[in-house]
């Protein structure tokens, strides 16, 4: 068993169990509290000391999520922005990853650009970006297209780093064989490289989708009146609407939790390669 310390003494095991229990509790308890708040009347939620079990249940908060225009719009907008930006970022990221896998110069240029871009703080970009997007006519658009473009740009590093290893692993001989058979480099990329990197591309799509779904900073500054979900949840929370905020928070978790539970282990490598704030 590589890397597994064989640690059998009592104190070690107790410490381990304690930590494991803590991890499970720390993951489950907060979610329970959110769930409780989302089905409790707010009068109860404001009680002091707080109730640990709900005394009365209500569906009002979930209903308000679906009845209020702005909420429905925000859900659709978040979905659209995440889907579009993931598609663009994965496409451009795959292109970049392929070039980086095949050329040392491209690797250096790509890596420097990606590292440099990741250094930029959101606030330094978002404030001036608003003016640029306004000139393009996509600032605060109802469809969220301006934000989708921004999210695509910030997600490219994640996509590229996720896909890079798969492209690098494709043996040159396969590409060269196709080349000898008369295929153009573009055709080789589309019909040989892309399919072979299917898994990584799917992972990149998912990671970029989640990156956009969760993104708060640019969304807050670029979509001021036509909001996506994260800033909307922020406003609900700081405006003291505990019930709807909790219901909204639970709903927002759905895509990410599905992905993690379903894909679990295979995400490990991808997460560590492509993480960014």
């Amino acid at each position, binding site marked *: 068993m590589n890397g597994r310390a064989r640690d059998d003494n009592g104190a070690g095991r107790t410490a381990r169990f304690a930590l494991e229990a803590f991890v499970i509790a720390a993951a489950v308890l907060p979610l329970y509290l959110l769930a409780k708040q989302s089905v409790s009347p707010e009068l109860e939620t404001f009680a002091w000391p707080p109730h640990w079990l709900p005394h009365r249940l209500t569906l009002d908060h979930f209903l308000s999520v679906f009845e209020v225009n702005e909420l429905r719009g925000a859900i659709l907008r978040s979905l659209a922005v995440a889907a579009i930006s993931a598609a663009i970022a994965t496409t451009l990221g795959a292109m970049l990853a392929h070039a980086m896998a095949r050329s040392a110069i491209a690797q250096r240029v790509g890596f420097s650009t990606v590292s440099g871009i990741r250094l930029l703080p959101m606030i330094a970009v978002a404030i001036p970006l608003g*003016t640029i997007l306004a*000139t393009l006519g996509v600032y605060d*658009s109802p469809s969220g297209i301006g934000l989708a473009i921004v999210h695509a740009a910030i997600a490219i590093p994640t996509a590229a780093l996720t896909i890079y290893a798969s492209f690098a692993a494709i043996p040159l001989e396969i590409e060269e064989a196709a080349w000898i058979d008369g295929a153009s480099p573009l055709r080789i990329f589309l019909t040989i490289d892309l399919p072979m990197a299917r898994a990584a591309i799917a992972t990149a799509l998912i990671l970029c989708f989640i990156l956009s779904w969760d993104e708060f900073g640019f969304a807050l500054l670029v979509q001021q*009146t036509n909001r996506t979900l994260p800033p909307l949840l922020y406003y609900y929370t700081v405006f003291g609407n505990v019930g709807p905020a909790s219901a909204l928070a639970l709903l927002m978790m759905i895509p990410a939790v599905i992905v993690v539970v379903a894909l679990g282990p295979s995400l490990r490598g991808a997460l560590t390669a492509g993480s960014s704030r």
Partner: protein
Amino acid sequence: MHLLGPSKRSLFLALAVLLAGCRATPAPEQLNIALAVFPDEAARYDRFVADFESQHHVHVNVLAQTYTDILQAMRVQAASRGSLDLVELDLAMLGEAHEYAQPLDQIVSPSARALFSNEAWNAATIDRRLYFIPHRLMWQAMIYNRVEVPNPPATWDDLARFAREHPGRLAIKGARYEGAVCDVMPFVWTAGGTECEPNSPGSIRALDFMRQLAPDLNDESAVFREMSVLEAQARGSVWIHFNWPFAIAYLQSKGLAPYVNLSAPIPAGPDGRATPLGGGYLAIPNSAPHAKLAAEFIQYLLTADTQSKLSRDLGWYGTVPPPTGTEDAQLYSGYTAMRQFVRARPTVDCYADLSDQWRRAIRGVLFDDAAPASAIAASVLKAADRCDCAENASGEL
């Protein structure tokens, strides 16, 4: 297309159909209104506009925003393009925002003018042209926990005593934003000072009083805004604070008013009582896609019937005081009592800067224990000088 495999081709087709579908039948004309309302208020406003929608065969899209977000969107729209036809702005922003708004003198008839007081219209008139329509006029009152504080403080001395005897129970909206000015200006005004004369004895005296209160304030005051202090009041960690009428509506919707919380007049100072006028004014932004429709909506709003309906449907206190004997009268008694002491902040185009300097001075006094004279530093005085502040008369609304 031959490069794509069969599955990719069908995906491409599906996308094409989807996109085409998005540009399908022409929708009814749409009016986009950005209001500073809470989402549940937005839902009620949606229902309120149903009449207008059916009369004019249009769809009114109500967007719930914050005032600063709306101002920013308005600026962007004035510079290039945008989708907003009507926006609601805070009184404090009118001076700055008028250059992004269209003049409305033609739209407002004399009978419409009669709906609001001169003070309200004056605040909306800049360089002798009318740019804004009063939409929802508000002022502040004191919100207090009647269970913990059966006798709310009525004077400065009462307030100081309350703070001393119950440390951490009095809150001021002390975040670095306009709300801090709204909380402290009444004290400045009732001591005889004004925002345009930061150095006057009245201003200094008021700031001295705030400094006296400072150690006993709820320590979250440094970050409190309208909604966060309201949530603290709802949760019972704050017993007295100052807020707009929606505070009562919020507490009522949570079942906490009138049973736990009520409104009361702001404590009187040496020079009497005062409360800041605030609230929303409507404007038609420059480059509004449906300016004509927006004008029609404004004319629809400016009738006595519609105004009553608006108050009723939205539960907004302001235009008409609630009839005596009703629960609303009890809930809003503090606001009704303050009605005659309302005072507007100066609608000058440099107000933002003047206010920003005041905020820093206020925070210096409240949280850094700065002496008022030094807190009213060169920067506040310079801002007041730069500003061509006109005196605002207080008066009946």
